[in-house]
């Protein structure tokens, strides 16, 4: 029963969370702009490099299965303007990551925000004002 309640709650939450984000930079067409996911996991790798910084993290579900996620944000020159540095994350850090998932269903996302275990927040660069739907036809 509790599982059913939890499932209903998450379904409700999921419906509430449906939204249209995304700031296009690379691989824009790959992302599902109608969804977002929240992941709690352990950082296994932080890549502070161009063209985009990336975070790899292991997310363990209730059954003990570990999913290996990777999420990208923008380049270091952009991220250092919003409070990130090359030392923001390191392997072993416990984080909560909110991201846009890819359409393919792979464990891949684009970072909306990361919250560190000490509460510090690292914003991504998702801005709806920069949104463009990749399936819009160009009017030539």
């Amino acid at each position, binding site marked *: 029963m509790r599982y059913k*309640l*939890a499932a*209903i*709650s*998450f379904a*409700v*939450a999921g419906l*509430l*969370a449906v*939204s*249209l*984000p995304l700031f*296009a*930079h*690379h*691989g824009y*067409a*790959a992302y599902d702009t109608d969804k977002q996911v929240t992941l709690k996991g352990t950082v296994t790798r932080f*890549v502070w*490099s*161009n*063209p*985009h910084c*990336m975070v*790899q993290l292991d997310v363990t579900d209730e059954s003990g299965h570990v999913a*290996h996620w*990777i999420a*990208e944000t923008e*380049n*270091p*020159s*952009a991220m*250092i*303007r*919003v*409070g990130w*540095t090359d030392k923001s994350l390191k392997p072993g850090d416990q984080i909560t990551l*909110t991201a846009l998932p*890819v359409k*393919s269903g*792979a464990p*891949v996302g684009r*970072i*909306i*925000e990361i919250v560190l275990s000490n509460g510090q*927040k690292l*914003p991504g*660069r*998702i*801005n*709806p004002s920069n*949104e*463009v*739907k*990749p399936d*819009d*036809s*160009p*009017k*030539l």
Partner: protein
Amino acid sequence: MLKHLIFPGVVMAALIFSLPVRSQTDKPRSPDPTEPGLDGWGRPITPLPKDRKSAPAPRHDISGIWDAGDTSGIQPLGAKAAPDDGKAEHQPPYTPLGLEMLKLTKPSNGTRSVLPGENNDPVFTYGDPQGFPREDLYELRSTQILQRPENVVILYQFAKVWRVIWTDGRELPKDPEPRWYGYSVGKWVDDYTLVVTTIGTDERTWLDRAGRPHSADLRVEERFHRTDRDHLELTVTIDDPKMYTKPWVALDKFVFDLQPSSFDVREMIWSPSEYEQYNKLMGNSAGGKDSH
């Protein structure tokens, strides 16, 4: 039963709506940063106060370290004044040949975006230089301008490239060998406006991130106008009769803020090895192929 259903639902909803990714338009977005931005030396960047009264611009002088802000110069959808956002008024006036050439480019941004693995942007596919005028129309960030009696030198943050604009009165070359960044001459048209004309750019380059094409006949005008001591405006006009039926404005009075002379411009180089790493870890994953 109902209580049990409602309570966890309310808790989850409260948690979700308390996330700072909700905006007034109910679209999720990243929260505003709480930390100051840093320059290349790790020093905080202090934005110019909005109400600051600037001193008048010096005569015939656009030298300085100019910052375009952290996002306004990225132009991910193509030229800022003509982004590929699906709006008819933002589409350049293509000739039939221009449209044919446009169809050959496959950008990973904008309305014609393709999956990362299908992208044929020469910068990301081959590691080609951006060339000119794309250096003005994609990833335009902190920019240093050095000025000497005979020329103006522009140092771009992105890819750490420079251009020399000759102001010694020379003419543009006739039928020049193409160069990635072309050949540029500049002339002061009034005390505060330097107009730069560039020709001879390499046809392999895209005009912008949206894959707009150009021919060898491309002629670009840059108008640098220093409105006061602290602000510089840049307008870029594209003139290429083979690809476009008339000249069009790609950048319209784009504003730079003057930074202190101690401002250190951060290095921003997209090396082929880093790009390969990105594609291996991220690009293929995002494209639905085998990944990390």
